């Protein structure tokens, strides 16, 4: 399972880098883009943990996570497009 350990380490670094962009993004769209990437990284983490622990329950969590990430992105895009504050 050392391959899964390497994968989880890479995913942890990716999540930290996305969190840096969420904290330091100059405008609102930067933060939304980074949060979307963070949700995709979290989907990878959930699937990898499900493989490591040899259980199939976490795939349903991944379904809900993918749906919620898309809905949040579209909601933020509508918010920006309708004149919400961009800073």
């Amino acid at each position: 399972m050392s391959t899964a350990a390497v994968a989880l380490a890479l995913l942890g670094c990716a999540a930290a880098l996305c969190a840096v962009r969420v904290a330091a993004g100059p405008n609102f769209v930067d933060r939304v883009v980074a949060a979307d990437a963070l949700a995709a990284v979290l989907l990878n983490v959930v699937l990898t943990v499900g493989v490591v622990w040899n259980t199939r329950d976490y795939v349903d969590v991944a379904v809900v996570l993918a749906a919620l990430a898309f809905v949040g992105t579209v909601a933020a895009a509508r918010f920006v497009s309708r004149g919400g504050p961009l800073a």
Partner: protein
Amino acid sequence: MREVASLFLLAGAAFSFVAGVGMVRYRDTLSRLHVAGKVTTFGAAGALVGSWLFHGGGWQEVAILVFLLLTSPAGSHALARALTRRVHRLPEWPYSGDS
């Protein structure tokens, strides 16, 4: 089959790491949107194929993959369109007047 699944999971994690690096190093909002729209999709696809192979099939992974391939370009396009219209002060379609 488990080794192949591990390789797919590792490839997905590597793609996600590349997405994180690009998210920090790129200097423009639309460039970062480009990274998040493509590399992230490949990373999630790798993890989904790996999980599908490891667990020996299942409809959830296929459903997530199809959903992701359909909605990731839609979400990226919605964000880019919203940013462009906001920066250039274009009205929202249809032009109802309250935007």
